[in-house]
């Protein structure tokens, strides 16, 4: 069974204090790993897709990396507007046309000014 575990559950940062979020996964075969941002009362908002170990993607203050067992989301010099829950999800190797996502529990990030 596919499993995704995110740590820490919550993270409090001062503005400008860089940090990393972890996403560990167990899947029979990884077709893609996805990072989403979720604001309170909203749906997940797509950030990145990673396909293979060693791959990196960047967007503003966020950088996502992937190894064979885990992914990291690095937040560099965060601002208060980066406060959100960050979700990691995996899509296993093609099993059916559906390609469901299995999500982790998320990391709640609070950036204080």
């Amino acid at each position, binding site marked *: 069974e596919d499993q995704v575990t995110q740590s820490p559950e919550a993270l409090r940062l001062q503005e400008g204090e860089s940090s990393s979020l972890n996403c560990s996964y167990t899947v029979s075969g990884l*077709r*893609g790993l*996805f990072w*989403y941002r979720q604001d309170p*009362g*909203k*749906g*997940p*908002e*797509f950030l990145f*897709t990673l*396909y293979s170990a060693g791959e990196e993607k960047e967007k503003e203050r966020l950088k996502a990396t992937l190894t064979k067992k885990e992914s990291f989301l690095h937040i560099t010099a965060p601002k208060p507007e980066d406060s959100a829950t960050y*979700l990691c*999800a995996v*899509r296993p190797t*093609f*099993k*059916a*046309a*559906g*390609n*469901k*996502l*299995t*999500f*982790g*529990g*998320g990391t709640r990030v609070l950036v204080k000014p």
Partner: protein
Amino acid sequence: EPEVTQTPSHQVTQMGQEVILRCVPISNHLYFYWYRQILGQKVEFLVSFYNNEISEKSEIFDDQFSVERPDGSNFTLKIRSTKLEDSAMYFCASRGTGDSNQPQHFGDGTRLSIL
């Protein structure tokens, strides 16, 4: 930017009643999904839908649940006889064609409260 829209944003229903949650996926997308998130828990997959049929469903998606694409723009989730444990946020998502690793794009959800 195109987005997935869901209505209503909040639905309150008596236990045992039927409820229909509505979604308008992004217009050129052909893969559709429903997920739910019980308060404080993970986002969970319910069902995926392609070419007018269910392509995959989870154990949660039992006979009380059904999905339909009644016309060219809407995608609905029906719960026939709601239970207290159906209270959750329900998210619709859609995905484009082409590269099968295109991301799923989510709506802002319907909060379903069963009394």
